[in-house]
């Protein structure tokens, strides 16, 4: 019997020991991103290393794709059967990704992680990425648009600075327009809507929201380019470009951060472009108020898990780790967070050492909590291109603004 027991034990050990020694099957996770910034990648790799320490079988890599044509590259990878496991997604294409069924649902995974505290992620930040109560992406970056101003250029044109106008309660688009007209007359450029370049018209939301205008109705079914607020806002922009020269015209290249212009509308992360040598006297202020009052506009980026990826469950688990409260605090160094517990001057001030407490309070915190996300829609790429082609007729001196806006609606309405 003893001999039998020994044999049995040896047999059991012979089976069990090799099993214990064999590691779980290795799983590689790839996240597509549009940043190639070394500091960003260093942080991402640190978070990934911490995850791998807990899950040795999972290896995470980050695939930096060029921002130009990012979504096209992503969809080509999906078409080629090489979808990444996770990817950053732009706010404008959120509608396409969320409604198509390309993304895996994440709510259960987030709720299943202890201390994740999903309730801390603001509802407004999640709204773009939510459909029928299910969450399809984590809005890791909620970045408000602000107005960077060059006080040296403004003072040289004999104008009041925006800070002075804010103090006097007079920071309006009319005043901003007057400053930019004077600056242009003095030989510099006035206002640059960064990345607009007479093609990315959706960036003009940073102006027309001040008129309460929007390209389509809230349900996304009706074109509203022809409604009065949009006509007024576009007439204002057209006059600023062609009559007052307050905005550089089509084909005119100018860079605010090189000191060429008085003002630029862009996201706060662009503060890193401010010159370190020969700096000018700059400020960051909220967008001026328009006829519809004060307003803010935000851009967003989400991280989604592809249902067609190789390991959607593992990828979702990694995303829950990547966006947990501890890591969200680390990510806040570069990306304004969606968690209300992190939306305070202390965290954001540490993340943006270039910005003063007032700038953070007025532009960042106020912007994130009250801002409206840039317009997006299902099938956005086609709507964007079609409206761009129609709006080209607006960017000439003798354009008939209401007629052009009507042609925009005629062309995009069938796509809504």
């Amino acid at each position, binding site marked *: 019997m003893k001999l039998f027991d020994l044999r049995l034990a040896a047999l059991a050990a012979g089976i069990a020991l090799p099993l214990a020694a064999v590691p779980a099957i290795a799983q590689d996770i790839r996240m597509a991103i549009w940043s190639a910034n070394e500091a960003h990648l260093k942080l991402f790799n640190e978070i990934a290393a911490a995850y791998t320490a807990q899950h040795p079988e999972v290896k995470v890599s980050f695939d930096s794709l060029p921002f130009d044509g990012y979504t096209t590259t992503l969809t080509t990878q999906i078409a080629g059967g090489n979808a990444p496991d996770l990817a950053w997604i732009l706010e404008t294409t959120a509608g*396409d*990704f969320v409604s198509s069924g*390309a993304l895996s649902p994440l709510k259960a995974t987030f709720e299943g992680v202890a201390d994740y505290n999903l309730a801390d992620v603001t509802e407004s930040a999640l709204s773009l990425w939510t459909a029928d109560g299910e969450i399809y992406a984590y809005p890791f970056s909620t970045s408000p648009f602000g107005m960077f101003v060059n006080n040296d250029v403004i003072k040289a044109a004999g104008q009041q600075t925006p800070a002075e106008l804010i103090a006097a309660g007079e920071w309006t688009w009319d005043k901003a327009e007057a400053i930019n007209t004077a600056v242009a007359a003095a030989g510099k450029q006035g206002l640059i809507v960064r990345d607009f370049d007479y*093609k990315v018209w959706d960036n003009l939301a940073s102006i027309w929201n001040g008129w309460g205008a929007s390209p389509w109705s809230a349900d996304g079914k009706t074109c509203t380019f022809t409604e009065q607020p949009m006509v007024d806002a576009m007439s204002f922009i057209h006059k600023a470009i062609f009559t007052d020269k307050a905005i550089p*015209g089509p*084909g005119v290249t100018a860079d605010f951060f090189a000191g060429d212009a008085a003002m630029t509308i862009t996201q706060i992360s662009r503060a890193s472009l401010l010159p370190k040598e020969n700096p000018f006297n700059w400020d960051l202020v909220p967008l001026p108020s328009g006829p519809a009052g004060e307003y803010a506009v935000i851009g967003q980026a989400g991280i989604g898990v592809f249902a067609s990826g190789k390991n959607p469950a593992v990828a979702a688990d990694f995303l829950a780790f990547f966006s947990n409260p501890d890591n969200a605090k680390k990510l806040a160094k570069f990306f304004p967070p969606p968690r209300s517990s992190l939306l305070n001057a202390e965290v954001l001030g540490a993340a943006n050492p270039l910005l003063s407490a007032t700038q953070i309070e007025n532009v960042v915190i106020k912007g994130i909590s009250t801002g409206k996300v840039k317009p997006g829609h299902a099938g956005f*790429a086609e709507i964007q291109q079609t409206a761009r*082609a129609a709006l080209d007729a607006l960017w000439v001196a003798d354009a008939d603004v209401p007629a052009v806006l009507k042609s925009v609606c005629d062309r995009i309405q069938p796509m809504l």
Partner: protein
Amino acid sequence: MPTAALTADRSRKRPFWTMERRDSLAGYLFIAPQLCGIVLFVLIPLGLVVWYSLHEWNVLAGTFRFVGDANYKKLAADPALPEVLGATAIFSAGLVVFNLSLALLLAILVNQKLRGITVFRTIFFSPVVVSLVAWTIVWNFLLQANGGINGLLQVIGVTGPNWLRSPPTAMASVIVVQVFKNVGLNMVLFLAALQGVPRELYEAARVDGASRWTQFHAITVPLISPTILLTMIITIVGSLQVFAQIAVLTQGGPGMSTTVLVYYLYQQAFQFHRFGYGATISILLFLIVAVLTFAQWQMRKRIVFYEN
């Protein structure tokens, strides 16, 4: 019986690898790499494109649904198609006329026996070896409203137009950028053809009192006509495939004025995620290229002289 046995015996003795079969095998082995390449990278993708064009393929949703000829019907009724085909025709016609005329003129100029003429040949040919996108990006800077070209014009007191923002100048700019990029290649082909024209013919013509113009149109043009046809076919086919210049300089605008067929195909397939419809447009492009090439090949009997 003995005769049959003899025949069987003879056939048994005859080796399988006859000289003829060896030659055939060698021939097939020589063309095998090329044939494999054509099958793998031309014929199979071409078949797949036809297959895709019969489907609605939404990449994001992961759907691939057979729709028969629906994409072809949609293409026939596409309101943007006439504008796109018009832009394609203007671009191709402008490019071919400007490219061939300039290439021939340059070839005649650099065909002179002058000291240092090879330097000029190198200069005119050099854009051909420059990266297409780098070339186009530099031109993009030059063509801006406050760019280099208008800066130069201002020196002589001329206010230049906003080149890339109005339809006629945008199309002209795209054509010129493409011509300057590739004119060197056609110039070299014309130069080789010009140098192949026997000198005696010109000498005889001069003796007969022929003017330079008569020599050009009665001797030069007929003798280089095979090269003219070749460069015309290459340039037209190339012009129908233009993409990078449009993507960098105009993105198809202003309006739809520079949206040529390949750029429209790219938009539909890769930007709007309609791969099935994109495949249908590429079939149309294939047919246009095939018909044009066939038509030009047929024309050779009328316009090409002295073809070997």
